[in-house]
């Protein structure tokens, strides 16, 4: 009897610690993965729209001429392509989005410095907050899926478009163009995220792993040094 009591006490303590950690981990998050997925899709729709950030920026920076606008429409290396995202597992996808948006938020903060008055470009601050909100939902969804986020590796840039060396100080115009490209890439990335998430909602994710597209690009994914590739997370059915 005397031996059993400490064992029970230890068990209760362990469970309590486990529940407390879980509760602490999910505090502030919705406990509905469907809601989280819906929220993410909505956020992706909002942020994927260029009217939310890029177009105000173009107007504000006088990059309106079509030639200049076309110069913005280049996929920056900072954002993974849609295919790449689609090829990721859910934990990796979530991690990638989380990390990418962390960089975006930082970049938006840098971009904010270009404007003396933030009220001149309120969309920028709104975009920063949305980015952080998306990251929060991604975090919560990952937690809900029992896939604690790991720091993803930087997304690999596209091979056809080498990234510019960051060490060189660009001119103001070039900075604007770079920012424009960044913003365009951000919108495009979020659009891709939204579409991938929609596929999650449609249940196409079940067959995605076996789709030819995914198989065709699997090799590319494998080339990336990713922790998730080394220890794939268990698949969790996303509730519809």
């Amino acid at each position: 009897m005397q031996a059993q009591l400490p064992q029970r006490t230890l068990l209760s303590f362990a469970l309590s610690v486990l529940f407390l950690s879980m509760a602490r981990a999910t505090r502030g998050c919705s406990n509905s993965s469907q809601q989280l997925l819906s929220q993410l899709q909505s956020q992706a729709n909002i942020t994927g729209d260029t009217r939310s950030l890029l177009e105000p920026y173009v107007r504000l920076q006088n990059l309106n001429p079509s030639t200049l606008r076309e110069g913005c429409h280049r996929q920056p290396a900072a954002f993974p392509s849609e295919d790449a995202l689609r090829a990721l597992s859910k934990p990796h996808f979530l991690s990638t989005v989380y990390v990418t948006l962390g960089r975006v938020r930082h970049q938006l903060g840098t971009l904010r410095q270009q404007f003396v008055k933030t009220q001149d470009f309120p969309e920028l601050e709104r975009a920063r907050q949305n980015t952080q909100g998306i990251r929060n939902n991604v975090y919560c969804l990952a937690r809900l899926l029992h896939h604690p986020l790991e720091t993803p590796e930087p997304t690999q840039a596209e091979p056809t478009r080498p990234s510019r060396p960051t060490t060189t100080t660009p001119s103001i115009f070039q900075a604007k163009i770079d920012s424009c490209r960044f913003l365009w890439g951000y919108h495009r990335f979020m659009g891709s995220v939204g579409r991938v998430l929609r596929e999650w909602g449609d249940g196409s994710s079940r067959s995605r792993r076996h789709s030819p597209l995914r198989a065709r690009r699997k090799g590319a994914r494998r080339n990336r040094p990713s922790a998730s590739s080394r220890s794939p997370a268990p698949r969790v059915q996303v509730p519809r």
Partner: protein
Amino acid sequence: MSALRTWLVQAVLIFLTTESIGEILEPCGFIYPEFPVIQRGSNFTAICVLKEKCLRQYDVNASYIVWKTNHVAVPKEQVTVINRTTSSVTFTDIILQAVQLTCNILSFGQIEQNVYGVTILSGFPPDIPTNLSCIVPEGKNMQCRWDPGRETYLETTYTLKSQWATEKFPDCQTKYNTSCMVSYTPVYFVNIEVSVEAENALGKVSSELINFDPVDKVKPNPPHNLSVSNSEELSSILKLTWINSGFGGILRLKSDIQYRTKDASTWIQVPLEDTVSPRTSFTIQDLKPFTEYVFRIRSIKEDGRGYWSDWSEEAHGITYEDRPSKPPSFWYKINSSHTQESRSARLIWKALPPSEANGKILDYEVILTQWKSLSQNYSVRGTELIVNLTNSRYIASLTARTKVGKSDATVLTIPSSYFKASYPVVDLKAFPKDNKLWVEWTPPPKSVSKYIVEWCVLSDEAPCTPDWQQEDNTVNKTYLRGSLLESKCYLITVTPVFTNGPGIPGSIKAYLKQAAPSKGPTVRTKKVGKNEAVLEWDQLPVDAQNGFIRNYSISYKTIAGNEIVVNVDSSHTEYTLSSLSSDTLYMVRMAAYTDEGGKDGPEFTFTTSKFAQGEIEAIVVPVCLAFLLTTLLGVLFCFNKRDLIKKHIWPNVPDPSKSHIAQWSPHTPPRHNFNSKDQMYSDGNFTDVSVVEIEANNKKPCPDDLKSLDLFKKEKLSTEGHSSGIGGSSCMSSSRPSISSSEENECAQSTASTVQYSTVVHSGYRHQVPSVQVFSRSESTQPLLDSEERPEDLQLLDSVDSSEEILPRQQYFKQNCSQPEASPDSSHFERSNQALSGSEEGLIRLKQQQGSDPILQPCGSEQRSLFQESSAAHALGMGTDGQVERFESAGMETANDEEIPKSYLPQTVRQGGYVPQ
């Protein structure tokens, strides 16, 4: 070096100053706890610790400590001396919010000195905030509200905490308030966790966490740019377009649309299920043509979560026109002054209300069709048409036209001039209800096409200008659709209209709302009697009635009496107040009453009569009658007793002018026939006949007699020359009878003009037969007057006659003109004696005069005859009455012959009355 020295000096000074101030400000002790905040109803203990230095300085210990709360000493029961330096005080159930607690010592045993003081605050710990809710107005920061619970009475801070799973947001703090707006813009589609923490000195509590997506708490901005457009194809629809609120199209909003007509106050709700899908336009159907509508719209998140936005600004729109849905009301009036061959008709119609006109009425088309003849068309913009018609029957039709089309026609039959209307409505009633004047009737037995209801205000100041309306044949109850005024009398007429013409109209009076009359009736008296008064008044003018006069009240009272109120039916215009007091002032006031109250008229006063009508007549007439009767009786009596009266009052005095000298000889037969006199003096009475000898005594003239004599002489001179012995005698004209005295005899002897006439003094006074026949002379009627003036003498004589019959008759002869009134009592007898002697002398003298004065003869003969007659009568033993009668009748005859009064009134001197013969 000097600078260093200066610095050191300053430093030392500052140190010393600081030390000294510290010494001064250093208290003798402290209270613990220094900032006490306690919960109400709980116990609290404070201690005061004195410093050793003070104990020595003031030679005190803890037992010298006095605790005070708000300057009031704390009872010693609550104080405990713990040791030499420490004292404690305990309070139970502090309810004051703030209490000042001081620790004091009694230095030197009596001087109270404050040691330290603290403020005790009491209150409650905060309750757990409940009902936490947040709202996110579009474009604004999130605002949360909560219920703080019980009042804490302490400064309580509420902190609104919000966080994501990965990020905490700045707290929102507020004191006392129950809401707080966060400083950041919430991010949609990210769940946020919110709680509110309440904290004061007695505790800190936190509400339950609420976790929500701010997008589910959104209150959108109202839709804007709401516009309305109509359709020419459909006059019953309007299309709304608007722009939903911001969010850049992020949120899907559903709408709530309401509309109403411009003049209406209540909104019509478009079913929410029709607008559940997000949209920016909507078409509303089943609207009235050519009607202005007002619209508004609001929105909410499509899933219904969150809050409805405020209503948008109202937008107006008018539906397109259509043809009138109803024909106008149509009626006519025939001008009363029409000729035999034509008449003037005034066709009138009502403008269609907008709800029936369905557009702007361009004109009205009137078609007049005479019986079996061509029709006449009129296009009129107004609402009346005056046409000349023959006496025939007409059919009039009326249509209203908009730019879309014409209404149906309303047809009216104008009968011929010889048409006889019939069938009125029955049981016509009018009554106010719901601030409207309703009219109800029973249809006539004949089929009715429609009804025409007319009404006008009855007024004494303005003519009755009727308004009218048309009702369908199925209607038997309606209200007057006009702007009616309260307190006005309306004359309402309902006319049934048949296919062949109008029926007999029925009328009734009614009020929309009655009120008390604006003035009271003016009462007046029609007739005032002793105990009643008839009051009358005029009916109030209709403008002053303000309602149906139900009754009058008459209040009347005397000045000091109680007021009496009488109610009178409104149909009366006069009333009789009865049981009034006579000769009393009454105040009357009259009031007229409607159903809503009354109004007094002016006060009126009247005074009742002293006598009733006819009362005076009833008194006066009998009195007059009685007087007349009495008078008549008196007259009759006098007439019957005229002889007696005459005898006493107005005895016949023989007219000397008619006298005749009688045969003084007893043998001389009487010249006159006294038969008639016998008849006249049938009672045998004979007026005292006195023979007065009036002498104009020059020796002893009496002033009066002389005066009279002079006057008589003058008259005599002025006459036609007649002379008379009587007239010539001054004593004759005397107002007093001459007395046959010695002096008088002398006067008579000495005066040639003395005329003597004799009067047969018959002693038959009052049926007493004189014992002695006396013959005396008389020359004037004055003795009679004297006897008339002095009836007592007669009475006295009467009495005397009883004892001595002759004396009274002789007194007349004994009267002395010079002393007529001296010794009246004794003179009677005296004079009588003298008269006896005088009479004898007179006879002698008379004879002498007859011889000397022929003029006097006739008179003497007459007197003589009288005397003879008297003596003869006496000798024959005849009654005195008969003698007197005869005598008087002779006198009367004489008077009749010459139309001279039978008697000689003493003061009446007629022309020729004393004419001497």
